[in-house]
């Protein structure tokens, strides 16, 4: 835990514990949040990584981390975390390890694993009250294989497998609520483009015991089709238009850490990305634009905290 609480950008650590040289895309929104998260978590962490883009983070003998990394199949990262936590607990119990040497066990998966194949393993881990942190980098599709739709793809977005005139016909799964319904110690949404909010949530999660789960929206230049330099600005717009609410579930209550005011029209966010270009070209799809705006408005209607 940092000695000073983080209140503004200036308080953020710049030690760069997280190594450069990873094979993630230029402008990766997932990496932008992960390196910030790692600064707060510190080197005494062990990562359990489900298959996804970040599969490539730690390819032997190269790793950006200062500790261990375990790679699991797509559905089983929380089960891997259970094994590591149990092993650490046994070592502590038998006094073969000093308490100061204990590690944070962190699951790292994409939205494909978190919302789909890995959801039941996550549910079971919460049921067992596993002491772990779950980081989901959500780029709203199976980005590692060319952005096919996932259960986290937003309504109307074009993906490699939603190429029709109206994009993806389904709706983004409300993973925050699904996770919170298990009543774990902590659930939050965050984004790398809001570093202070992200850092405070990681600090909060770090101080708690039990299951703690965080979803960070990860603007994805190739998957969402935008210029890499715009990644952080698009992330900010996701928050300002209210399409990505920043919130926490703690002590049985959901609290918003940022209520956008005034809330910008959602199309200011949509028009920055090629995956929504069919909503504007060759002509505006007023019906679908209104539908997306309406779903955002309905979310915020009545929210005061």
């Amino acid at each position, binding site marked *: 835990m940092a000695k000073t609480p983080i209140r503004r*950008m200036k308080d*953020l650590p710049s030690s760069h514990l*997280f*190594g450069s040289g990873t094979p993630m*895309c230029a402008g990766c*929104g997932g*990496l932008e949040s992960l390196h910030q998260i790692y600064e707060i978590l510190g080197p005494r962490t062990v990562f359990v990584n489900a298959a996804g883009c970040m599969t490539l983070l730690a390819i032997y003998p190269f790793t950006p981390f200062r500790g261990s990394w375990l790679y699991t199949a797509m559905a089983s990262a929380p089960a891997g975390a259970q094994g590591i936590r149990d092993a650490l607990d046994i070592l502590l119990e038998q006094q073969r390890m000093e308490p100061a040497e204990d590690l944070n066990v962190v699951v790292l998966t994409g939205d494909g694993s978190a919302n789909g194949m890995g959801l039941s393993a996550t549910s079971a881990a919460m049921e067992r009250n596993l002491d772990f942190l779950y980081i989901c980098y959500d780029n709203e599709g199976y980005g590692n294989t060319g952005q096919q739709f996932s259960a986290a793809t937003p309504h109307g977005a074009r993906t490699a497998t939603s190429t029709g005139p109206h994009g993806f016909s389904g709706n983004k799964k409300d993973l925050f609520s699904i996770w919170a319904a298990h009543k774990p110690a902590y659930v939050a949404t965050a984004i790398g483009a809001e570093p202070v909010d992200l850092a405070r949530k990681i600090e909060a999660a770090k101080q708690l015991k039990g299951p703690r789960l965080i979803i960070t929206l990860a603007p994805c230049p190739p998957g969402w089709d935008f210029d890499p330099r715009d*990644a952080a600005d698009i992330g900010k717009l996701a928050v300002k238009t209210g399409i990505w609410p920043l919130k926490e579930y703690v002590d049985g209550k959901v609290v918003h850490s940022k209520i956008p005011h005034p809330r910008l029209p959602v199309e200011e966010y949509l028009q920055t990305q090629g995956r929504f270009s069919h909503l504007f070209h060759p002509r505006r799809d007023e019906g679908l634009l209104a539908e997306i705006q309406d779903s955002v408005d309905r979310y915020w209607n009545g929210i005061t905290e």
Partner: protein
Amino acid sequence: MYRIRFHGRGGQGMKTASRVLGTAFFQQGFQVQDAPRYGAERRGAPIFAYVRASRTAINERGVIRHPDLVAIADDSLVSSPAAGVLQGLGPGTTMLINSHDTPEVWRHRLNLDATILIVPVGEEVTDRADLPFAGMVCAAAAARLVGVIGREALAAAIREELGAHGNALADRNIETALHTYDLMQDHAGAVTEGTEISAENYASPQWIDLPLENAGRAAPSIHAAATSTLLKTGLWRTMRPEIDYTHCNRCWWVCSTFCPDSAIRVNEAGLPEIDYDHCKGCLICVAKCPPHAIEAIPEHLAQAREEKAHAAKTPDR
């Protein structure tokens, strides 16, 4: 048989280039193989794709070792050993490269006995690092160089490969491709078919025998931290962010935090410094810098300037 290799960076469209050229050959009645080859890296990392085309059945498999034509979308790849651009280039090879330098410079630089051509671009293109439709330009130039692909077959191939993305996009690509095709008129048919490779001439690889080691010694355990920094992802960059320190506000926590690659550190004077060994050139820092003190400049210009400065510092021998 024609053997053609396309080299580029993920995102420059070289995989599509090989598909378009392969389909165009197919339209002309050829048997065709085309395949991309890339590793685990992403957009910006070196990739290549290759096409074989023959009027008879193709029995060769795998990567093309001795190409008749190598098309290179990005000249900064030549100096990257991992890209393998120069692999198997010989006297019979034509090298087509997107570069601001002349064929003479490249011949001298590489000491290479191959035909070297520069990708033709219109006068409106001032910076080749930002060449739009780079892959399509290379595909069209290659189609003209082999001399057996007509304008119509090229256009039809692009329509077939890009049609799913809408007619407007296909039309823009066809227009760019046909323009390049016409610019290459003087070189039509310059690339000829390579000789058939026969199994009779097969030479087995020169294997090196390594004795087995004790398993305990042969499987090293590595405890070093952050070893990824040994990988120089700065080679991916086509645009370089540069800090103008006269305008820098020293709010290093902004650029240093938003940089996804931990490639901006803070020096003792409280100024941000960009680590060009690892900066991938995403330019988020350019977008986020509050006083707009970071500027993006084409990598090749930055490198040319560095070389000049270095030469000026080195006294004549």
